[in-house]
């Protein structure tokens, strides 16, 4: 049964110091969700250059991928996507009644695996741009 709490506001400065693992997981999931939705709209806008002509689409991709900042942002996007996926799986299991007793450990595991995949992907994302 769902319950509501007076949780105050996240914006209350200093409150983060008393956050538990579950509250960080909630905050990170919201943050990564906002980033992914923002990226979805940006992604479709960039892909829409294909509506002009094939050359503009190709030039847009090549132009963006030649910028080091875009490659770095792609690494960040991967990190955001991987965390949202892993924490999402964690939430799905909890919604199914599995793993609530280990929800802190599964959050930490999500962070560690996200970090490992992100670091391992850096050579792939940065190849050829420097």
């Amino acid at each position: 049964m769902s319950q509501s709490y007076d949780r105050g506001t996240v914006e209350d400065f200093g409150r983060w110091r008393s956050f538990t693992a579950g509250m960080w997981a909630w905050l990170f999931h919201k943050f990564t969700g906002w980033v992914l939705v923002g990226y979805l709209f940006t992604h479709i806008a960039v892909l829409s250059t294909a509506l002009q002509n094939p050359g503009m689409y190709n030039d847009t991709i090549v132009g963006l991928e030649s910028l080091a900042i875009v490659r770095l942002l792609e690494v960040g996007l991967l990190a955001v996507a991987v965390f949202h996926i892993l924490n999402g799986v964690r939430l799905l299991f909890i919604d199914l009644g599995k793993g609530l007793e280990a929800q802190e450990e599964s959050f930490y595991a999500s962070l560690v695996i996200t970090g490992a995949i992100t670091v391992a992907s850096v050579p792939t994302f940065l190849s050829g741009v420097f």
Partner: protein
Amino acid sequence: MAEHYSSFDRSGTKWLLQRVTAAFLVVVLAFHFFLLHFVNHAADVTFAGTSARMSTWTYFSLMVLFLVTATFHGVNGIHNTLVHRDGVDGWKQTAITAVLVVASLVLIVQGLRTALVWTNLF
């Protein structure tokens, strides 16, 4: 401590759809990232390559479903974040819902228009 806390109404259709789309997106988002950054490098993506992929029914239908489910999941998540706050009701809630519905429709229509440029299935 409550046994369960969620900002979603668990009895609602949207609650279920958010979970069903999540399960689908976990797989398809990982596939999409892997295919276009590790199998094919993003810098090597071309109109011809995209067109070849989008001209198979399997890939085309998967990407269209990806667009629709990602839009629903993302925008519904934003909606829940914005609306389930103290003091957000009445006309504010209606305005937020209206803006998000319009934005979703624009995104899906633009995505479909772009998908149709790439494919030779029709």
